[in-house]
């Protein structure tokens, strides 16, 4: 296991190097000119030259890429082109907000959806199963944005159950996050329950389930002790791989509810051509995804003794 992990970490290096190079290439060669974006209509040649020098954009391609690699290794991505603030400060604050938005519905939603999926798979083939399948497919067909717009209008504005949008630090944030949590949970029900149901149905035909029932185990015991334990493996892998996306935030949700998370920061950076932020986000996402991919494989081996990492 140890050597496997070391080997995987070493394999990550060329992957991340490739991501960094591609990102850098795209933004430097094919990306927009951030200096003209910043200076706008009244840009004079002298101002363009001065700002390019200030941002280090007059350096050679190799030098700029080297500086970028140093930034990645030291986790110091420099300063925002837009505001001059340190990116580390911007990201620290943003990550906490994004996690407070995505983590609770992810955790509780997953648990809730597992229970619902178990319940539905128990009634496999019956009206409940068919109706719920239909409803979940319909709900999955509706755009995420529609959920946000409609529920914000109905539940916050029309009924006044929640604030329309906004954010305050600390525990005061809970009232602002309730509606986004509800929406995230609602949107995740369809795909999660469908996936979990498929996994459970796959397991319910197994011999060990038949054996458990034959031995007189109660249905809750069959579902929650025998079935769930074995079904947890694929559920776990699907769940862990989704964690990096919790950190990167729910872009559209953060915009509509004015939540100052990583997603909103990224969209603002894209609109303003703030390349340091965009480059940092791209590389960090790749790093997170690679790390959690590795973690998934390791957890898989830990949970299922039949799996041996080599």
């Amino acid at each position, binding site marked *: 296991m140890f050597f496997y992990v070391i080997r995987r970490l070493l394999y990550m290096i060329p992957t991340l190097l490739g991501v960094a190079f591609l990102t850098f290439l795209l933004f430097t060669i094919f990306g*927009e*000119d*951030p200096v*003209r*974006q*910043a*200076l*706008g*209509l*009244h*840009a*004079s040649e*002298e*101002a363009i030259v*001065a*700002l390019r020098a*200030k941002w280090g954009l007059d350096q050679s391609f190799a030098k700029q890429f080297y500086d970028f690699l140093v930034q990645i290794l030291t986790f110091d991505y420099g300063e925002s082109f*837009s*505001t*001059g603030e340190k990116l580390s400060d911007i990201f620290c*604050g943003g990550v906490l907000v994004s996690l407070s938005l995505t983590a609770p519905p992810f955790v509780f939603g997953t648990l809730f959806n597992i229970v619902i999926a178990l*319940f539905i798979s*128990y009634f496999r083939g019956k009206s409940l199963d068919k109706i719920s399948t239909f409803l979940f497919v319909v709900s999955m067909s509706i755009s995420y944005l529609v959920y946000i*717009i409609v529920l*914000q*209008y109905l539940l*916050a*504005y029309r*009924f*006044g*159950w*929640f*604030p*329309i*949008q*906004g*954010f*305050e*630090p600390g525990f005061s944030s809970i*009232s602002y996050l*309730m*509606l986004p949590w509800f929406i995230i949970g609602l949107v995740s029900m369809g795909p999660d329950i469908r996936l979990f149901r498929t996994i459970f149905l796959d397991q319910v035909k197994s011999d060990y389930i038949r054996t458990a029932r034959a031995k007189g185990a*109660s*249905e*809750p015991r069959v579902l929650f002790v025998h079935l769930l334990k074995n079904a947890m493996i694929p559920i776990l892998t699907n769940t862990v791989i989704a964690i990096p996306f919790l950190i990167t935030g729910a872009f559209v949700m953060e*915009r*509509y*509810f*004015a939540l*100052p998370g990583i997603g*909103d*920061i990224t969209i*603002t950076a894209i609109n303003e*051509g703030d390349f340091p932020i965009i480059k940092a986000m791209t590389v960090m996402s790749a790093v997170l995804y690679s790390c959690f991919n590795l973690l998934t494989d390791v957890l898989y081996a830990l949970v299922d003794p039949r799996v041996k990492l080599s």
Partner: protein
Amino acid sequence: MKFKRQIMFLCLIPFLNNCTWFSSGEKNSSGQNFFKAEDNKVVLHQARSADAKTLDPQAQFDSISGLFVRSLYDTLLDYHYLKRPYELIPVLLEEMPEISEDKKTLTFKLKKGIHFSDDPCFEGGKGRELVTDDVLYTIKRFADINVNAMSWFLLSDSVVGLDDMREKTKKILNLDYDKEQVKGLEKIDSYTFKIHLIEPNPLALYSLAASSLSIIPKEAVTKYGDDFSRHPVGTGAFYLKEYRKKQTMTFVKNENYFMHYPKDGELGDKENGFLDDAGKKLPLASEVQLDYIPESQPEMLKFKNGELAWVALDRDNFQQMAFFDKSGEIHLKEDLANDFKIYTEPGLVTSYIVFNMKDNIAQNKNLRKAIAHAIDFKKKIELLSNGRGLTLGTIVPLSIGGSEKDIGNYGIPFDLEKARDYMKKSGYGDKPLQLVMTIGGTTTMYQNLYEFLRDSLDKIGIDLKPDYKTWPSYLKSTQIGDFQMATAAWTADYPDPENFYQLLFSENTRGSAFKNDEYDKLYDEMRFMQNSPERFEIIKKMAQILQEEVPVIFDSTPLVSGLVQNWLTNFKRNIMVDYPFKYLSVSQKSEKTVAQK
């Protein structure tokens, strides 16, 4: 079965209307939120779509940063809040500056007793009085290329010696401004100074009203260094209480503010209640909270909920909430009139189409005339802007002196027959012709614009292709002349026709390469004149040249519209004073008043 009985199904919580478990604010009987006044304190809530890039006046020139800077700082001059056409008034000055006979020397007298807000950067933490040294320091800092990359054009080639100082700052970082003698900036005493201009230039006064020339204290820059961009110290109507990025930002009243509400306005202001607070000390509001709201839907919902003071109407919201009557006036829908008022104001933006005069095809004058006659801009406004716009007969928007209101209409009218005639004269009448329109955006709005233009030119046999560009690419293309035709727009830096006619002055045209000696000569004559019948005669000739040569086709100017809460008083849309918080208050007669959160 046992399992079925054991598993309880969670019931839906009964829907209860007006259940406010998680929401804040009280609701009145009509179900709308409102704020209660406490100790006569007025707290205004308004939206902002982005964060300020910086609160350093000399380093900013975007609208959001300008919003903050104007509330926290003051300029020597500003625009009268109520009068139209827009006119300058003294703010930090006792009176308008005295102009010498040769019009090259301006003498300024500062008001006495204006203080910066209290701050640790001052001795004992107490804000000191604003004096001449602060103004001269600010102007020099404005000229520093390491501080100001965006708005230097406002004073370039204007003040004697200031351009030389700017040259020095290219080589020297952290230049000591106190040691730099600029011949054009002359201190007389602590409250009096002169500015010597290179040549007569009354437009320089407009520059002194720009937010990037807000007066700052040297002590704040010295103490805070780079952090000065987040630590404002000004003389403004408010000071910054709380700076939470991408959340709520709070301004609190400066109790020692020196300005008073205007005592006069334009015709109709008194009847409309805009002079009810005449002479009162500003600001009228105790606190302003600016909520970060990047999307328009939640902004409109919050406004309808009574949580925001006013909101701009975009295309979709306009259709839901307002309509045009038979005479073309905009009105609010009846069910909304109890709670809101609607405002409309011609914008200070000119949209136009520009030709690259170096392009072999676009050089053809008859072709340009054909294209101009083929586009029905009135229809374009109806289709693409819900009718919220005004066609232009000159390059100057209607609310600025020197527009077609003063000199007449010199636009090219929509006329398909004439268009086809000019196509024949151009030599392209029988030949298929493809043109490329460079478009400065990629959103649906720009796609709709292209489709309209394509359909218009299709009627005269022109196959128009789009070249969509993002903003930086568009800027580069149009500045270096890498285009055939392009959509364009110009927002007034100051309300003077010169700011628009300079676009076609040969030294400024850059990419479009339009050059007309007669036009240049007339521009030189009129640029520094005050508005007068003589000036308008010169402008008329310039408009005639543009009508004849067609280097540009005038499109339209927008009708800026929005909604205001009925309980908000003194709100008069002023395009030059975009966020007039210091003038705003709440109606004491209304049942709906403002509360502190």
